[in-house]
């Protein structure tokens, strides 16, 4: 198993490193911008200028130094990027079938379920590495650039945001893995899930203003990651993480079941 996990990590390594570099740079930039606002004392002015959409998306994050430095963990672009990365990883077994790698690997005495377990492990490791790098970037930025006397984000809040980000990624990764159980081409699993992730984000986001989308919101994993609510202490974190965990578990179980019966 370690051999397979190591090989997969080596394959996704460049993508993971590139993404980690982008996300960490973003965190550093956020801290720099927040530090600038904090020095000028202009957070109140900034908050009053925000349109309703941004106020909903960012909550009180835009009105404090601690809030602004954590935006990177739930900003639309970042969260979708992480979801797409998880989808890319989750489609790996379909890619292995597509490329015929399964022929040579699973002609060896390896249980079939390793195909799924390997991808789940790689998914978890990659998402943890990514969010930990983001967390490290935030803390390094704070150490380097935070103005004296500024209020830093609470580690508990940052860890909660990181946990949600990892779980949303796991949820999409596992869903892609389940879809890969029926796919013979990587794109057959990856493309529909990539589009679905965007659609589900829009459903959750637009559902705030359009009542017609309310019933669908609960089917969106993004609905269970409300960054601004976490910052403001309004979120039911345990419930949200449980829902995301349960969805991941169900999708993983489907993947195990389908890969145990399918033709490779």
């Amino acid at each position, binding site marked *: 198993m370690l051999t397979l996990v190591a090989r997969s990590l080596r*394959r996704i390594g460049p993508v993971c490193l590139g993404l980690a570099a982008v996300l960490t740079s973003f965190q550093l930039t956020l801290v720099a911008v927040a530090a600038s606002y904090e020095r000028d004392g202009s957070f109140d002015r900034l908050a009053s200028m925000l349109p309703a959409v941004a106020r909903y998306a960012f909550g009180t994050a835009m009105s404090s130094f601690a809030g602004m430095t954590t935006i990177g963990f739930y900003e639309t672009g970042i969260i979708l990027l992480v979801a797409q990365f998880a989808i890319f990883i989750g489609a790996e077994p379909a890619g292995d079938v597509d*490329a*015929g790698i399964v*022929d*040579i690997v*699973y*002609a060896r005495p390896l249980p079939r379920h390793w195909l799924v377990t390997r991808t789940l492990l790689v998914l978890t490791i990659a998402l943890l590495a990514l969010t930990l790098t983001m967390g490290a970037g935030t803390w390094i930025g704070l150490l380097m650039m935070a103005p004296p006397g500024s209020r830093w984000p609470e580690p508990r809040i940052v860890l909660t945001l990181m946990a949600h980000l990892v779980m949303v990624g796991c949820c999409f990764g596992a869903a892609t893995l389940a879809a890969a159980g029926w796919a013979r081409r990587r794109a057959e699993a990856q493309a529909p899930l990539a589009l679905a992730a965007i659609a589900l984000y829009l459903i959750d986001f637009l559902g705030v203003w359009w009542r017609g989308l309310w019933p669908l919101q609960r089917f969106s994993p993004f609905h269970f990651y409300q960054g601004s609510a976490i910052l403001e202490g309004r979120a039911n974190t345990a419930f949200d993480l449980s829902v995301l965990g349960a969805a991941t578990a169900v999708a993983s179980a489907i993947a195990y079941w389908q890969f145990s019966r399918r033709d490779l």
Partner: protein
Amino acid sequence: MDATALRIDGLTKYYGPVIGVETLSLDVPAGAVFGFLGANGAGKTTTIRLLLDLLRPTSGSASILGFDCRRESLEVRRRVGYLPSEMPFYPDQTGAGYLKFLSALGQQPVSNARLEFLFKRFDMSELDLRRRMRDYSHGMKRKIGIVQALMSDAPVLILDEPTSGLDPLMIEAFCETIDELARAGRTTIFLSSHVLSEVDRVCDRIALIRNGRLVAVRTMSELRLETPRRVTVLFSRPVDAFVSLAPGVTIVTREPQRWVVEARGPLGGLITALAHLPVADISIAAFGLEEAILHLFEGRAC
């Protein structure tokens, strides 16, 4: 070791309405070099992938060394060295890295001596092995494929089109290796191939498959006996008299000083019958596997 190394019993695989293989049954004795022949799409690769549990059968079963290919597939795959018809690879890996990766997955130690022997046999230098797989030619990838199938000294080898893309020298090296394994008698080899000369050279028995169904299973000696041999007889003077030839011999062309006959089975009877005729010369066409296979397909014997 059981006398039968590989047993297939009523194996059927449908891909929706398409027949992959249908009610395929055959036994491969331990220590045999078994050629599995058929045209493209006949069901050879499907059968091989069913044996390795990469495909799930619609019905029927198969076993290797007494282990069921479906229920005990881990035990089966522990004992099989496999070369797929198309060698999949990770482009970023070097040849040496690829072999190391596969040997780690095989969960069985691969001896350096064995690897060195195979590298030498298939003319693979250290420099070759340090190159990335994406830079390899088709033949080089094939050689890596053969090495990975043979490196663990598995008691059963399943080789799908092993020599496709190899140059004549490497085909010879491959045949020599199979001959050595066959002589040692510890390995059962199940190989599919289109290259009939290679099958003729290394196999001691064959199965023919067409449209997913078994057409015939024969030992090479049975095939030689069954296949009509064309014999041309030249006489020193015209022979007009009717001569009763041996059973199984039919005259194809009859001219006063030249007969062309087809003989099945041992040629002794024909030689005896010709003994009292003024024979000037006899030429016997060499056994051709291609002709034998065509004959079997025409007869659809089983």
